[in-house]
């Protein structure tokens, strides 16, 4: 068992993909929404399990990712850890390496991106670094596969020897303090290295403190006493002091092993950075890139969707021939096959190009520039800059947009972003807005509705931000140098994501389609309309047929309008609906529920409970809003 650990953006996943090829499995850590990537490979007669730990900057418990990684290395004790280090940012990466070494697991360092470092004018004495740390250091260029074989070879070697890394000495005062604490629990057995425990309780790490308290609370008071002396001497709190000390050592090592030849001139990556974060050009570039992404996803998606749909519907005569027509045949076709087609033609064609585009933007480092530019606007909604991307995508299709919420760091931010995203009028809802209000009342009123929608999203986003408990959000984000995305990694990530999506979304879509079809075949639609009429007719002031249309709209939003035309017997809505009814119907369809594919996506990302709550809230909210709008508009019309 070998674990890959390191900072974000250092090329960890490229190494992981290189090592494991297609023999990998991506899931979540038990009970967490943090991605867990595992894979296997055969090497020199060994079967090696490889696990790719999340990219993190420290081993404290600031985030779920950090706790998970730490727990995994300390408790599961992999045979070796491969620490992937970005050679061009050695100091910060070594800060993490030092923490890994405290855990005393056999390890190897992959000094990655040395080609990039060289371009930036940084040369590293690999042997010296290896000697100082007591850990093998292998220079690698992961995207070209350079050094990977040697890396694996060394990892197997240290795992076999159970070679521990050297102890890295901190300053004298710290070493004395650590020793004193270590002595205090000499009689107790803990599942971690002693020195590690001593450092962690000096750092006031909550998790370790609790474990120690269970053995003997006295130890904590000794640590507090020792810590107090340090704090008095240096004038900072212990956690600050230890972090500073680690960075001091990391800095010393980095300066000792690296030679900085000042870079000849700004690299292309730096020039690109300048342009993409420029206060005017940056926004222009962003607009262009996001729009082209939007068009790429939807042009490609529409094409694929239509082709697939024609192809699949072409099968209908063939299938009905086999099954014969009749109740069961209809049910099979309308329920199960239509469900499959809906899944294949709505979700798939948009999800695939979306993932590719998103991973390219993320892998290249562009997402962090967008976040930088949009941070302030998103803050008003309790989110930070990165949320802008899913929101924009929501205008195309909510499904990929919800999936895109993964780029947020905490679960809370993901949920708020997803919530806001599901309220964005997607392409299907655009059909309703333009096809009803735009066509029969006027395009300017359609635009008014878009603005109205944005205002509501903004208000609800703020509300969700206030209502959901959690830390205030703030942007602390590395802006890595631009680099060419690694296409193979992008495609692989897309493929695994897609498989995961299908597993959850397809069954849900089929079940829903089947249920609706069952109702239709059983002739229950009339009854449904009647049952819903107190809400649709009395409260919203709409025709009775709206009940069933709205239910069909859950399958795909534009169906709400198509069904309405069917049930009212005309596509010229100006005969059957008043302008107020059109506006109310459009507003309700805009907000009332995420479509089934979006619900399925939310279930995948956030679990049943949260998705259910979100769905119910949106239904109630849309109905309440629709009724209020109906009354307000009626009063206004009477006044003028």
């Amino acid at each position: 068992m070998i674990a890959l650990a390191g900072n974000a953006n250092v090329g960890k996943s490229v190494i992981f993909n290189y090592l494991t090829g297609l023999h990998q499995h991506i899931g979540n850590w038990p009970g967490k929404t943090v991605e867990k990537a595992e894979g296997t490979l055969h090497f020199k007669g060994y079967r090696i399990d490889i696990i790719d730990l999340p990219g993190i900057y420290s081993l404290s418990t600031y985030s779920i990712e950090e706790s998970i990684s730490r727990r995994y290395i300390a408790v599961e004790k992999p045979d070796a850890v491969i620490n992937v280090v970005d050679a061009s940012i050695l100091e910060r990466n070594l800060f993490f390496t030092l923490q890994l070494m405290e855990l005393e697991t056999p390890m190897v360092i992959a000094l990655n991106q040395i080609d990039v470092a060289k371009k930036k004018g940084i040369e590293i004495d690999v042997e010296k670094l290896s000697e100082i740390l007591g850990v093998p250091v292998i220079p690698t260029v992961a995207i070209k596969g350079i050094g990977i074989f040697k890396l694996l070879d060394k990892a197997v070697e240290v795992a076999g020897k159970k070679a521990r890394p050297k102890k890295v000495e901190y300053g004298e005062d710290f070493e004395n303090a650590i020793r004193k604490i270590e002595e205090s629990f000499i009689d107790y057995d803990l599942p971690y290295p002693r020195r590690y425990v001593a450092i962690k309780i000096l750092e006031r790490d909550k998790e370790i403190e609790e474990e120690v308290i269970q053995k003997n609370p006295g130890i904590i008071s000794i640590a507090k006493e020792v810590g107090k002396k340090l704090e008095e001497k240096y004038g900072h709190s212990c956690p600050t002091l230890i972090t500073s000390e680690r960075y001091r050592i990391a800095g010393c090592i980095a300066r000792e092993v690296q030679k900085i030849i000042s870079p000849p001139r700004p690299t292309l990556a730096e020039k690109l950075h300048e342009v993409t974060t420029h206060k005017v050009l940056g926004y222009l570039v962003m607009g262009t890139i996001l729009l082209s992404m939007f068009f790429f996803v939807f042009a490609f998606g529409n094409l694929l969707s239509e082709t697939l749909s024609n192809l699949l519907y072409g099968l209908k005569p063939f299938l009905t021939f086999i099954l014969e027509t009749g109740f069961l045949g209809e049910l099979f076709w309308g329920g199960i096959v239509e469900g499959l087609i809906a899944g294949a033609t709505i979700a798939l064609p948009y999800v695939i190009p979306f993932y590719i585009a998103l991973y390219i933007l993320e892998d290249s480092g562009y997402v962090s520039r967008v976040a930088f530019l949009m941070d302030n606007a998103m803050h008003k909604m309790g989110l930070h800059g990165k949320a802008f991307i899913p929101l924009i995508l929501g205008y195309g299709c909510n499904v990929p947009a919800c999936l895109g919420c993964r780029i947020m760091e905490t679960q809370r931010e993901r949920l708020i972003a997803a919530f806001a995203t599901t309220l964005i009028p997607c392409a299907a809802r655009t059909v309703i807005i333009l096809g009803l209000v735009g066509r029969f009342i006027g395009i300017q009123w359609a635009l008014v509705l878009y603005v109205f929608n944005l205002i509501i999203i903004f208000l609800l986003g703020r509300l969700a931000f206030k209502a959901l408990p959690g830390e205030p959000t703030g942007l602390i984000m590395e802006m890595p140098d631009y680099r060419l995305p690694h296409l193979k990694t992008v495609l692989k990530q897309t493929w695994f994501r897609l498989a995961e999506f299908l597993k959850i979304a397809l069954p849900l879509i089929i079940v829903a389609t089947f249920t609706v079809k069952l109702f239709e075949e059983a002739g229950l639609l009339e009854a449904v309309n009647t049952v819903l009429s107190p809400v649709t007719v009395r409260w919203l002031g709409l025709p009775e047929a709206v009940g069933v249309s709205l239910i069909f709209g859950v399958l795909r939003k534009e169906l709400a309008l198509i069904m309405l035309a069917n049930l009212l017997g005309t596509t010229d809505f100006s005969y059957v609906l008043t302008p107020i009814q059109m506006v109310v119907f459009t507003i309700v369809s805009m907000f009332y529920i995420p479509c089934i594919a979006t619900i399925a996506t939310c279930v995948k990302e956030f679990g049943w409970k949260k998705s259910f709550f979100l769905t119910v809230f949106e239904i109630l909210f849309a109905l309440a809003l629709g009724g209020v709008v109906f009354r307000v508009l009626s009063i206004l019309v009477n006044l003028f």
Partner: protein
Amino acid sequence: MSIEEPGKKEVPLTNLKDGESGIVVSVKSGYGRAWGLKKRLMDMGITPGTKITVVKTAPFHGPLEVIVRGYRLAIGRGMAEKIFVKVERVE
């Protein structure tokens, strides 16, 4: 290579102009929920005594782009206000 002079005032990072550098003196925070953010800032290398350079600020009072320990970091304005530095003026 510290060129700080004694008696210089501590100012929040947001007071620095584009291109100016400072030496981090402290990161202020309560012990409440903001504690995690302070820890995060320090884990990213913003510890007392570190040199930090403001490259630019995003428009509309947006986040700051800084260089610290040889890499580029974006810090939200709210947090940048809590980082106190001694200014190093470039002559």
